[in-house]
């Protein structure tokens, strides 16, 4: 299962349509009655299920849509998450990509609309971007299928474990880092480490994100009393 996230207006749906062709339908993600589009494609005799998440600026959610995107990446644990970014305004898109990378390491950055960026006189050094982020970066122009094969190949390599990611970790200032360390040690005995990224959870607790705690309770089926 592959998840597709991205800022609004980055050509995310075009990427989705190009990858899945006409094999798609609108489905519900169990537990949450939010319609989302799902699709399928085959590559190298493997079946991939692609889930199109709502356009989001951030995973520190400030809208129901962004909450859905965050919850999905966090709790449905997709095998790989594609972050679609607009090459013409990379900085804003990297903000989202970095947040996704805090939750899951298996990320591909799909740098879309590079033709449009070029027209605006913007060029991106793909190799060093990939090195900086520690995840693969694939340049695409979804409108004419440029880079789509590469994208499929990269996803396959990641899912099959042929490609290792070492996503860049954001270092916060000392006060925040101290709090993170402290809270992480408290979470440790309560939630199995395999279920959620501790550092990220600790950050959200510091952030005062009470909705996430409710989400954890409903998705991970932990006993209610532990959390509240």
């Amino acid at each position, binding site marked *: 299962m592959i998840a597709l996230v991205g800022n*609004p*207006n980055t*050509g995310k749906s*075009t990427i989705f*349509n190009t990858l899945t062709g*006409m094999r798609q339908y609108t489905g519900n993600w169990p537990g949450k*009655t939010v*319609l989302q589009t799902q699709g399928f494609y085959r590559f190298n005799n493997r079946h991939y299920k692609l889930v199109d998440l709502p356009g989001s600026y951030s995973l*520190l959610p*400030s*809208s*129901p*849509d962004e909450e859905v995107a965050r919850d999905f990446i966090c709790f449905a644990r997709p095998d790989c998450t594609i972050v679609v970014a607009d090459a*013409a305004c*990379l*900085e*804003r898109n*990297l*903000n989202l*990509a*970095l*947040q996704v990378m805090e939750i899951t390491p298996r990320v591909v950055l799909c740098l879309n609309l590079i033709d*449009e960026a070029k*027209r*605006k*006189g*913007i*060029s*991106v*050094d793909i190799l*060093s*971007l990939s090195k*900086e*982020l520690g995840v693969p970066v694939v340049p695409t122009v979804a*409108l004419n299928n440029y880079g789509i094969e590469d994208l499929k190949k990269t996803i396959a390599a990641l899912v099959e474990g042929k490609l290792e990611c070492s996503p*860049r970790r*954001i*270092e*916060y*200032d000392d*006060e*925040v880092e101290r709090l993170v360390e402290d*809270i992480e040690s*408290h*979470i440790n*005995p*309560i*939630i199995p480490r395999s279920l959620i990224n501790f550092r990220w959870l600790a*950050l959200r*607790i*510091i*952030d*005062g994100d*009470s909705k996430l*705690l409710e989400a954890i309770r409903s998705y991970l089926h932990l006993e209610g*009393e*532990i*959390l*509240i």
Partner: protein
Amino acid sequence: MNALKEVIPSNAEHFTEDSLRINKISDKIVSSIYREAESIADRVVSQEKGKIDWDRRVDDVLTSRWLGYPIMLLLLGVVLWLTITGANYPSQLLAQGLFWGQDRLTEFFIWAGSPGWLHGFLVLGVYRSLAWVISVMLPPMAIFFPLFTLLEDLGYLPRVAFNLDNFFRQAGCHGKQALSMCMGFGCNAAGVISCRIIDSPRERVIAILTNNFVPCNGRFPTLIALAAIFTAGAVSGTYSNLLASAAVLGIILIGIFTTFTISYLLSRTILKGIPSSFALELPPYRKPRVGQIIVRSILDRTLFVLKRAIIVAAPAGGIAWIMANIYIGNASILTHTAGFLDPFAALLGLDGIILMAFILGLPANEIVLPLIIMGYLCTGSMLEMDSLQALKELLVVQHGWTPLTALSVMLFSLLHYPCGTTILTIYKETKSHKWTLLAVLIPLSVACIVCFLLNQTALVLGFG
């Protein structure tokens, strides 16, 4: 075991106690991430100076003080004109083909020696209403949907929201309501779902309750057909389509005006509150992918809506035929019901058959006009309904429609309750019986009041 329980409240407490502190820590986290993004972007992006920013030039025109609104109206008008003009011929062709099919079916039933009621129910009831729904609906939808998706793909719709936001702000609702209204032009159910882009619950409910006031494609063909019939005589030839487009445009503007009025009233009464944040992105204009637009809008929208209409139209056509052909005393059930509704309908400038068609049409607005025709055909003489001319003959000559009747039907169609699917969607979205009920009652009372006032005024002025 209880460690987390302790950690969280203690943090939560000091955050609520000291909102400056939560701001400070949250800010640190947010800006750390952004700083990181900025520094990476700085290292890998190179910007060449001196390129012309075409988007700005285009925006200078499309959102300009003087041209912004006229261009919006013009574009909407052009879309309607293309739809009306383009749908005319294929509509007729489809109708001719399908009614040729009806004759062959009739021959077949006679040849097979089947009883009259079976032929009546299946051919005159079910098949004929299907034929009407397909020939009236398919061509306008197949033209309107791709055109609208094109505007969406180009990135024009956010500009509409940008231009209109001030009106929405004054009505106490969200500028993104313009976007959910645009979706409503396609399908109100889709429009209601798209209200999710509005974050504030109060403003979302307003947008949901008023979405019905933009005519969906199920009502467009009715509006278009009636507008075409009743403006055709006024001017000749090529201009008649322009006039029909203008008439439909006028009806849409009335719908938009109603949206603002009702939104304003709602946000001053049962949905009081201050406007929430707006923050709308104006994306760059994009080259649309025409092939994908056509395929997607035909597959996802046109066929979907058509399928729904057919599923509903077939049984409704059957029921209407049964009602017209089962007699109690010396008149059919249809005549009885229509007669019962007549006095009330007359107050609104309609008649019993029309009102019954709107009631039976609850599952899908698409079938209202076909039901009216069915109702008239069952009581009147048989006709080959293969052109707008024949329809005009039926409505005007045989059943005494005046332009005022047509206007009343169009207004009632524009304003009355949303279709069954939309009502269901509203319930799913709001999870509230109260809002769902209001979503039906508000439009219904608006429709009744407007039609009543219109007709009584006309009566007083001597137009009735």
